């Protein structure tokens, strides 16, 4: 099994019976914290992501929005999503950084049948290792956040790797480095949680009574978290209210549930659904994006 040649301790490997190698040293869990109340939607992070990761320029078009792309793609791992809505008669312009959240319980990894195609490191980064990817797209279905994107060209799946090469070298991810308003913070998960609490207090003092920290339990928490001013409007930010990662066989069944209809026929789907009825709550495919 070929794995990326970095020095990070591995926690989980997709489709592997082997326990993860324990690693050779203690490593803090890291996290990004996106404070939506500080984000001005300038897209500097979007471009820094492309520059650092050598992602191709895609032809885009204006579809009646400030948003640059309609959706994430194999060459766009980070997308600022724009959404206008009125709350209590006041206009809001929700601007959300959409990219991989690096779940503690990664649905993509659990769903992946290709050994070593998805690796979770002890520090929390979930990375796709395209060398081992078989292009089955189970990860796409397994992700409760609708993040991974399949390239028809290379027949592999891609997403944010939290600038693992920078992180390994002790640097912050490119999006964090470039953010002009310090809307994206980076540090240990513990520090980021503490910072999130402070930010929550600031928002409460500013009159955002429903402000919330987004670190959803259903996926064991994430390594990109959000501080959300209107915590009662998560779907309007493009954030699923109760995302859940399916583990083990359940992950595979969840995949069948989502893509089975056209791959395996209605009969098999019905069986899968029957199994699922007694299992944990399944991800709601409508909650992705925004």
């Amino acid at each position, binding site marked *: 099994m070929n794995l990326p040649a970095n020095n990070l301790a591995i926690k989980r490997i997709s489709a592997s019976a082997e326990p993860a190698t324990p690693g050779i040293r203690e490593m803090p869990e890291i996290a990004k914290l996106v404070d939506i109340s500080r984000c*001005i*939607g300038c897209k500097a992070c979007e471009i820094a992501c492309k520059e650092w990761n050598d992602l191709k320029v895609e032809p885009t*078009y204006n*579809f009646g929005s400030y948003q640059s792309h309609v959706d994430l793609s194999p060459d766009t791992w980070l997308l600022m999503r724009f959404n206008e809505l*009125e709350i209590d008669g006041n206009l809001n*312009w929700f601007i959300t950084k959409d990219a991989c959240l690096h779940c503690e319980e990664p649905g993509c990894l659990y769903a992946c049948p290709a050994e070593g195609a998805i690796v979770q490191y002890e520090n929390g980064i979930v990375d796709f290792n395209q060398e081992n990817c078989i292009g089955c797209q189970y990860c796409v279905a397994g992700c409760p956040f609708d993040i991974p994107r399949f390239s028809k060209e290379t027949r592999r799946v891609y997403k944010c790797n939290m600038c693992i090469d920078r992180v390994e070298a002790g640097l912050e991810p490119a999006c964090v480095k470039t953010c002009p308003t310090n809307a994206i913070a980076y540090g240990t998960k513990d520090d980021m949680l503490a910072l999130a609490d402070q930010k929550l207090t*600031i928002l409460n003092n500013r009159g955002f009574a429903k402000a919330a920290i987004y670190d959803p339990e259903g996926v064991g928490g994430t390594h990109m978290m959000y501080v959300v001013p209107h915590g009662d409007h998560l779907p309007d930010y493009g954030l699923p209210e109760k995302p859940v990662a399916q583990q083990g066989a359940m992950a595979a069944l969840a995949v069948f549930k989502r893509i089975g209809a056209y791959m395996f026929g209605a009969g098999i789907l019905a069986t899968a659904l029957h199994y699922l009825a007694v299992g944990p709550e399944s991800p709601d495919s409508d909650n992705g994006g925004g």
Partner: protein
Amino acid sequence: MTNHWKDIKNTDVILVMGANPAENHPCGFKWAIEARDGRGAKLVTIDPRFTRTAAVSDQFMQIRPGTDIAVLGGFVNHIIRNGLFHDDYVKLHTNATFIVGTGFGFEDGLFSGFDEASNQYDQKTWEYERGADGYVKRDYTLSDPRCVFQLLKKHFSRYTPEMVARIAGCTEDKFLEIAKTICSTGTADRVGTIMYAVGWTMHTTGSQNIRNAAILQLLLGNIGRPGGGINAMRGHANVQGATDHAIVAGILPGYLKVPNPSQTSLQAHLEDSTPEPLVPDTVNYWKNYPKFMISLFKAWFGDHATAENDFAYHYLAKPPGDATWLSIWDAAYQGKLEGFITLGFNPLLAGPDINRLFKAMSRLKWMVVIDPFMLDSAEFWKAPGMDPTEIDTEVIYLPATHWVERDGSFTNSGRWAQWKEKVIDPPLGVKSDTWILSELFWRVKELYEKEGGAFSDPIRHLTWNYINPREPTLEELAKEINGFDLKSGKLLSSFGQLKDDGSTISGNWLYSGSFTEQGNMMARHGTADPTGMGMHHDWAWNWPLNRRILYNRASADKEGRPWDATRPGIQWTGKEWVGDVPDYGKTTPPDKAGAFIMTEEGVARIFNPSPFFPMKDGPFPEHYEPVESPTANALHEKVPNSPAVHYYDGVEETLARNTKDYPYACTIYRVVEREHFVTSNVPYLVEAMPDFFVEIPEELAREKGIENGKRARVWSKRGSVEGVAMVTKRIQPLKVNGEIAYTIGIPVHWGFVGINQGAMANLLTPFIGDVNTRCPEFKAFLVNIEKV
């Protein structure tokens, strides 16, 4: 900026108006966010659109484009009516106490002294009343009906919440809600700041917008204080530097004045330009004008500038007209201009009424375009719709270095001159601006020397003493700008050392102290902050004299104690001033002189009658409708527009004066993904904001059958553009003068050169400018719209 970027973190209230810093100044805007989150400051945005700045603001109010003075005047009225002004500050640091002569008046939209034939004011009727001692009379009780305070009160009493709502289109409740926040800083323990940009300047009343902001901030006691001020955010990394070095028409470097034809001797010019004190206790620093001017002549003409020849004063042109941008374009349009050189600028796309500019450019014999990128301006002759066979203009394009390919300084909005290093080499064969300009100089000079010619002295006698005279280094130029003592040969450390006897030189007195015997002050990288106020005096260098906050004497009271001890600007120890570099004598006791050392009044002007720094359109601001307006002037129907606006020949017929054919207000602006036109060459930025678009209120789109993401056409009396329709809630219909008014928004970044093309916004804009500066009225004009 009176203050500087980082200082914004010290504020309690931020008014963003005539600006969209989240969009156009995202890095500096972090300090507004820092104030909001760090000290609970209220961030308030007032704009014709709900912008990305509005998205992170605490309060937002939408107004109709071109109604800023109505709103600001409304704040002034609210403050006075409710006694919310900073009483001690107003009496101590402003001319509220000054008595104005009996000649001053204001009636039906006109100030006294207006001459209808010339469309100009005689400012004599605005003069102060003098006492027997020759100084201006003052009333510290503010009760004299002719004191500035009472005149101000009367003038703005018409700006009631009802009137503001009627003009600007907001509701009275919304206005009062915003006014409550903005007008809350008139106490010693609170301070508010204003962040503005070209959303205020690009109006026929642009200068008065800024004046009104000054009045507001002076009433609230917010000028000179950390966390206060009026902060102009400049549109490029070095616009401030360019302005300081006289890119603005009508000035020489350091805001010295361009001579006019009546000033036939240096003496006459200096007398006209050097103010006399109006009160006994003013420093009146402009009394040093002759020192700055003569040192500038010495920098330019060296040994050829002598007392005998008026220090080469006669080498300078004394133009009868102005050389504003509109006037240059007009001269070209009228066929009176042979050619021009443009450098670091894309004038075609950045000018108003592009169809007119096409004609103007076509009438030039030659044009030189110097830029790192091929520009629309250089290829105007092959723009869509142009016929190259009909254009005789010879265009010469000279590729020049980009700023990453050179060292040099950038002066940011906060007046900080920061030295930068060269990052990469230019492409082979590409020359620096200094090489190009030096070669131009030498070749013209050599031609004069070979062939002779009329009045060649100014060229032949120009000083050009550089190690490599064919390409001076920017360090050499920086030293020359800083200035030398000619006797000792030493670099000066302050403009206080400049002399009017020809023994000193300085290319720009404001920059004296930037490059001293201690080295290049602009290249310093010290991060210490001993004041704790984010002043960082060891980081780079700012004019004047590394003083981080202008007028900082006003941050303290009569005894020199800071208004707010937790946020001191400077304070008097009994022996000297400590804190920021004082805008006052370092050891001058607090009661010895007025805080505003640059004015002949010694205090700040709420009312401006100064002949040295005149406002051509009135000593107070007044709401005038944009020249193209969708509604009547609710204050004075007979004088709808600013009466002193200049109409160039043939322009009146290009203006829409009825709302039947052009019913909607339109405004143009930039977006964060792009920077003017240069970013049409940057693939990732084109990807981030790919297409020209038109922002349309939902209600108007419904009325016109325009769908989001489909196409719409917008036209003014001058031109037409087509692009993607962005149907949005972020521009709401407003109720103006009892009728529904719509605003349409258009970004400015597209042209016909570069990897990404789109409609040119300035095809729509009117060829009309601010009364004082002739800055074009890009921000408010009339259009119509249809679906495509």
